[in-house]
């Protein structure tokens, strides 16, 4: 057989129970395969379900419907031959570097002598020699993640799963760890047959992956799959890599219902009352508006360029661009962002008028804000417990999402002086202190 599948998922779905027993769909009908000698990157904004997919493939959580197959075997628990690198490293602070790396071998009852030899080899390979007897707390973030990688590689995994492995590192460190790992992969110095990477960094995905899978939320599904037939080692200056990055941004910001990607989108779809408002604080939103007004950008910009300019990954950038978009301060499409009339007016205004503009946009374009405002106007005393609003939200959103939506909305409403919030009592009101 040529290129046998390492992982195959069949109609994979994951649902969560919302309040009132309603089922919330996190991932919908995923059919996906990972072939041998492939490095696949999953990209998508937060909440798109890519981490859930990774964990289902790992056998850490079980799917609600559908099945995962690892080399033809149904996966119901973590498989030998699949190992994982964690975002926050997940090192045991009471074990030395060497002991941390040995732990997985110990669990497999590998004899002590062989265990030590293999662990030392893995440590040498990833550039940690000299640090064997150090405790993780003595190491910098980059060195800690090298331990995480050595621990994953020492069991000679068939498939390596990486959950945002470089996102907790600074840019330079991330690059150096990534380059070292890619060198091992490119030269075939590790026995691993495939790597599945979850990332927020599109440039990272473009530099590493053979395939980039774009996961879109509500519910999580595959938006598109891009093949990257670019020889390695790759460089960000390579026009082919740049093109790939552009394509990913374009796909991620283009509505799926648009008939043709070259035609401007029709009237924006109206938000629902329970729209998952992104985690975008007022300060960051106004900061981004000001940045866009910068003469260099003159009100419009390529998203990859903007991400580069701010050194943001999409985990940081997309909530903000989405926030501007739903407030109609900017038009976001085709991988570009452009200030709207309201956006331009906002930038020109002074502090007090800015609040008025923000308030107008909030009431007009965010149904939940308008709804709460109306409820408050109608109730006696103009007060409302946050529990009531949260209860409604939780029927349609997962618990942490509902809380995040309300927190963001309160932040926006306080800035716009639309309504007030009493933290101690948990009460929304029209009072003005």
């Amino acid at each position: 057989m040529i290129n046998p599948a390492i992982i195959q998922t069949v109609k994979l779905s994951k649902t969560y129970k919302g309040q009132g027993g309603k089922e919330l769909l996190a991932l919908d009908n995923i059919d996906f395969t990972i072939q041998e000698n492939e490095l696949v990157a999953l990209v998508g904004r937060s909440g798109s379900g890519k981490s859930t997919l990774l964990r289902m493939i790992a056998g850490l959580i079980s799917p609600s419907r559908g099945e995962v197959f690892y080399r033809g075997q149904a996966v119901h628990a973590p498989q030998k031959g699949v190992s994982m690198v964690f975002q926050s490293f997940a090192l045991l602070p009471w074990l030395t570097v060497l002991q941390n790396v040995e732990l997985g071998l110990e669990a497999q009852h590998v004899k002590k002598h062989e265990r030590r030899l293999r662990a030392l080899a893995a440590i040498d390979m990833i550039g940690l020699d000299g640090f064997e007897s150090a405790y993780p707390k003595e190491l910098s973030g980059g060195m800690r993640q090298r331990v995480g990688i050595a621990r994953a590689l020492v069991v000679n995994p068939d498939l390596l799963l990486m959950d945002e492995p470089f996102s907790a590192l600074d840019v330079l460190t991330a690059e150096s760890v990534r380059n070292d790992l890619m060198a091992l992969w490119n030269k075939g110095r590790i026995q691993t047959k495939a790597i599945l990477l979850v990332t927020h960094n599109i440039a990272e995905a473009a530099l590493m992956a053979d395939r980039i899978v774009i996961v879109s939320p509500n519910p999580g599904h595959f938006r598109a799959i891009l093949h990257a037939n670019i020889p390695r080692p790759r460089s960000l200056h390579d026009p082919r890599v740049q093109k790939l990055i552009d394509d990913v941004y374009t796909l991620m910001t283009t509505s799926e219902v648009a008939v043709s990607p070259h035609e401007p989108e029709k009237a924006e779809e109206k938000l629902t009352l329970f729209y998952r408002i992104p985690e975008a604080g007022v300060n960051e939103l106004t900061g981004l508006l000001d940045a866009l007004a910068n003469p260099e950008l003159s009100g419009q910009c390529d998203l990859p360029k903007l991400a580069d300019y701010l050194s943001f990954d999409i985990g940081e950038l997309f909530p903000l661009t989405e926030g501007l978009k739903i407030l109609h301060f900017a038009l976001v499409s085709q991988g570009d962002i452009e200030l709207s009339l309201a956006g331009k007016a906002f930038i020109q205004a002074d502090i007090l008028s800015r609040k008025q503009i923000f308030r107008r946009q909030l009431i007009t374009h965010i149904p939940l804000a308008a709804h709460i405002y109306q409820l408050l106007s109608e109730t006696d005393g103009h007060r409302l417990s946050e529990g009531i609003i949260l209860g409604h939200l939780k029927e349609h959103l997962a618990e942490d999402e509902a809380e995040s939506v309300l927190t963001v909305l309160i932040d926006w409403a306080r800035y716009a002086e639309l309504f007030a919030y009493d933290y101690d009592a948990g009460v929304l009101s029209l009072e003005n202190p």
Partner: protein
Amino acid sequence: MTKALYHSSAVLGKPLTVWDLAALLLVLTALFALGWGATEMATPYSLGDPIHITLSPLELPAYAIRTITRMLIAMVCSLLFTFVFATWAAKSREAERIIIPFIDIMQSVPVLGVLSIIVVGCIKLFPGSLLGPELAAIIAIFTAQVWNMALSFYQSLKTVPNELHELGDMLHLSPMQRFWRVEVPFAFPSLIWNIMISMSASWFFVVASEAISVNNQNISLPGIGSYIALAIDEANVLACVYAILAMLFVILIYDQLLFRPMISWSARFRAEEDDTESQSWFLNILQRARIIRKLAAVTRRFFLNLIPLFSRFSMPALSINQKFSAKYSHTAIMLWRTFYYGFLAYWAIYAARYVMESLNYAEVAHVLWLASITFIKVLILILLCSVIWVPIGVKIGLSPRARKWAQPACQFLAAFPANLFFPLFVIAILKFHLSVNVFTSPLMILGTQWYILFNVIAGARQIPHELLLACDNFGVTSWLRWKKFLLPAIFPYYVTGALTAAGGCWNASIIADIVQWGDVKLTAVGLGGYIAEYTATGDFPRIALGIGVMCLFVNLLTHFVWAPLYKMAGTRFKLDDVND
């Protein structure tokens, strides 16, 4: 080249160093003393036999060893209980529903009040041997130690980060490996801290539980507690001083040989570098001595080899958190719950009926009245101590030089059994003709006030330096500084300290309400005195009533006063949310 590093402990052929000899000597002495203490426990005895205690200071070292032995046995039992039940509660939802409320209730039961019941049971269990009373004393110490250890361990297990669980799954760790390599080390720092608190708290009980009277029979187990009881009985001031000195010495040894090394060693289990890392000379000796290192390596290997052996046995309760309860059907869980609550209700009714058969409502009203008095006393004492210790604690906490010696000193003072000082108060009250009701009250808080102090110190030391500078900058001084800055900043820590101190007060009232010196007996009005009085005569319905009311009061206070304060402390007065 790197390999040589890991086999350094194999060079055992070299001659012994001074460190080896010192370490060996210390360890062997300790083992011998404990062994002797343990064998002395099983001597023949039947209720009514006089146990000979002398006031000769030469006997004191032997008594001290017996007291320590009891304490350590109880600690081992506490650890076993913690590992079994706290783990069970953390792993199974059904077990959690029973174990955690049980521990919560048990925490509020006054140990000294139930002692007499325990003694009677234990003597029946081991007729004709001193093991019975010994066991009772050990159980009393155990109940003073175990609950906070179990709760802390349970809480730690519940807060193991999800990624570590996932790591365990991905590495295919067996349940035993997961427990010993991931979960126990994760819980270790807070467990060590709680072991220390427990040990400190239990000195008080070990002294109180050695000499007790049940059914008008005096039982005094050889130990420092009995020694001081006899000294009080004979109004022998010198003997009291000897006992206090002996105790000081014992606690000092304990602190230096056990706690300092443990705390210093446990720093390695913390995820981040800690600036409070304390040094321990004893740990340094142990770590430098090659023979001890070798010994440690051998024991470690022995235990690690045990792990795969154990992991052959399946441990369903230990494997995966939620899957356990999912195995049972809904109806089975409902049935079990009905049974459980039914049992509780039955037991409560049975106990109430038992009490009411021999007592009337007037008695109940009287006990409630006594409880209210004790409540007021506790309240006033906590307020007084707060007024005294909060400003001092803040001053110490803000000064790096002062807190260097103050924190270990407080821990030491908290460990010192305050009951040894009771005679001094009695002598003072008699001499100056002071009011008994007023001046015996401080005895209740004598031992637990230190919790307020050292928690306040801990709170003050974590106030960010920049906040202090900001307040200086804006001229926030005097009362405004306390009201708006210092007091709120230490509030979460203060609540913890005050809660511990208040809980201890209720318990201590049982021995603080009635104090003796020679033939003089001073009795203060309060619930503690009531329980103590009927414990001595073995009037079980009244003991049960007294203890029940005390539990009730402590629980009501916990739920309606401390829990809300705790919640407020955790949300509004947390410093790290804003200043990170």
